[in-house]
């Protein structure tokens, strides 16, 4: 963490003040990693959960305690790790707070136990989308909110086979369903990397 020098030798003109405000905001964004870290971790959890199912042509897919449960478990663990990491940062560095991550992890636990049918019918992206949207609203992070709606919406749509049923193939293949989740996971990791670059550039 470096000082932006805002208080010393700063300009008085509106343009200079705006530039200084932008510099401060980008420094805080770099310190927080508020967008890239959640996307990278949640995307990785999705990839780890779905890749084996897509490769093995969909073992357990759609079965109670099967693939969706496993990915849901990994996403819940990812939210819990994010809560721990942001809480640790708040205590150690004195910036930010873990608001939303704990609630998302609790939502995951509820879906994995009481709401298991909901998780199986709608797929793991109900947790991904709803959890990330909770985090985004608490953290007031518009980029996370957009991604939660976009990826979460597509994932839930696929939970009802909304995408696989529209693929141009007459035969339904078992690996397609987890492959679509896997693709969404990979896109989330790529979005996380793009967010990390943006944070490093100070935008």
């Amino acid at each position, binding site marked *: *963490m470096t*000082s*932006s*020098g*805002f*208080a*010393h030798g*700063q300009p*008085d003109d*509106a*343009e200079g*003040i*705006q530039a*200084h*405000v932008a510099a*401060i*905001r980008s*420094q*805080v*964004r770099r*310190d*927080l990693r*508020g967008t890239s870290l959640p996307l990278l971790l949640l995307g990785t959890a999705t990839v780890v959960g779905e890749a084996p199912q897509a490769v093995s042509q969909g073992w357990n897919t759609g079965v109670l305690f099967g693939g969706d449960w496993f990915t849901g478990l990994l996403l819940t663990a990812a939210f819990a790790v994010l809560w721990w990491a942001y809480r640790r940062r*708040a*205590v150690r*560095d*004195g*910036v*930010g*707070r873990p*608001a939303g991550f704990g609630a998302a992890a609790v939502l995951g636990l509820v879906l994995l136990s009481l709401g298991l049918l909901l998780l199986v019918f709608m797929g793991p992206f109900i947790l991904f989308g709803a959890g990330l949207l909770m985090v985004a609203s608490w*953290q*007031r992070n518009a980029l996370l909110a957009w991604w939660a709606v976009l990826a979460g919406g597509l994932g839930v749509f696929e939970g009802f086979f909304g995408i696989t049923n529209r693929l141009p193939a007459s035969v339904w293949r078992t690996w397609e369903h987890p492959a679509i989740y896997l693709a969404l996971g990979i896109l989330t990791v790529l979005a996380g990397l793009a967010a990390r670059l943006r944070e490093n550039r100070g935008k």
Partner: protein
Amino acid sequence: MTGRPDVPDTPEQAAGSHPALGLDDVVHQRTRLGILAVLAEATEADFTYLRKVLGLTDGNLGRHLEILEDAGLITVSKGYHGRRPRTWATVTAEGRRALRRELASMQALMQRLDSVIGARGD
């Protein structure tokens, strides 16, 4: 309304006369603008973090936090981490709005100056 009758809600409300009238004295001060900028991103930050990022002394930062708290733009809470006392500042919804208004007013002011300079052909 903002709850602060001297401050217009939007730059457009102040723009009837001159954009500079949309600037809020409490927010416009450079250090306080910096504090609000940090808190708008992080929502919450402690005294030490604010002091480091903004390059301020303890006394200077404390005074500006007090002014922002009195205006209802932030809340300040004190607690302990282990045996170490810590002071946390959190931005309020009004604080976020005030920062947005201020930045919009400055933008409007610059645009107006640009158009005046352009019209004169300087």
